[in-house]
């Protein structure tokens, strides 16, 4: 699964879902959290994460906060009000997609 491209379209949903559960998160933290939750099965690559975060920020779904941590600046992302609403939509879309895929892969279960 680690090399799979299946999650690519779900990257936005994953980010929104994580931020919905946590008040604010920074880039590295998001990659580690996904790794931890999926026990290493799903790996968000750095090359894909930041473009996705910047896109969501430009769309007004994420807001940023910067704090000095240790001897460097850290940029935190959090959901805006629109972002919170969009998270619900995206999760519903994903659930629907999973249901459809289940019906295709395992018709008996669906």
């Amino acid at each position: 699964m680690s090399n799979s491209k299946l999650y690519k379209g779900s990257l936005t949903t994953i980010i929104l879902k994580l931020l919905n559960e946590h008040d604010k998160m920074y880039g590295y933290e998001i990659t580690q959290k996904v790794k931890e939750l999926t026990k290493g099965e799903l790996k968000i690559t750095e090359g894909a994460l930041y473009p996705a975060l910047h896109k969501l920020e430009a769309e007004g779904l994420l807001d940023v906060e910067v704090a000095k941590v240790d001897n460097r600046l850290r940029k935190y992302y959090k959901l805006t009000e629109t972002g919170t609403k969009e998270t619900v939509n995206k999760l519903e879309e994903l659930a629907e997609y999973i249901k459809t895929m289940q019906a295709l892969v395992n018709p008996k279960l669906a």
Partner: protein
Amino acid sequence: MKLTESQIQDLYVFTRQHYVEHYDLQTELVDHLANDIEAQWQVRPELSFEDAKNRAFKKFGIFGFMDAIEQKGKAMNKRYRGYLWAELKTWLQLPQVLATIALYLVFYVSFSLGDIATIALIFFGIISIWCAFKSIQLNRQFRRRKEVSNKKWMLEEMIFRQAGSTMFVFMSQLYNVYKIPEHFGDNAYFLFLFSLGFTALTLINYISLEVIPSKAEKLLNETYPEFSL
């Protein structure tokens, strides 16, 4: 084990060497690399800073920071267009709309007075000279700002350097204006659209070269929480 201040500075240089010009994106990537290096040191404390740094960078894939740079540019362009549009909308509301209507009437009446191509070229000349003057002025301001802070912010560069690009859109139409047949000036529908186009382009140039740069500090503080840190 934590990174030292000089190692953090080394990471800033490293991102610059990998084509990340702007401080806003550099800062985010520096923190990411630093976190990764520190995580590696927890498992393998014997790793050198250089090795850990290269291993962290490899995780960005073969294109390195390029995707992040590209997307950040797109995102910031969208934000800049948003600011431009928000300002443009205020010129369609009271009281500025009165100035917009007056400007429109100046163009409309002038174009109806005589040879439309000649009059349009005169307006073109005036607007272009003003735009060129403002672009040079803003470019100088940008260089001075960079000398003082030694940092280059993506939005700041758009505000001070790309603002002049609307002038090129304007200038690209010079030949078409020159070639306008004289009898077009008698066509009320054409005059209406032509004056509207001139008004819109004049306003966009004015907003991007005068209004937005004058609000640069406010917009930069709004966009970058770290700007005043």
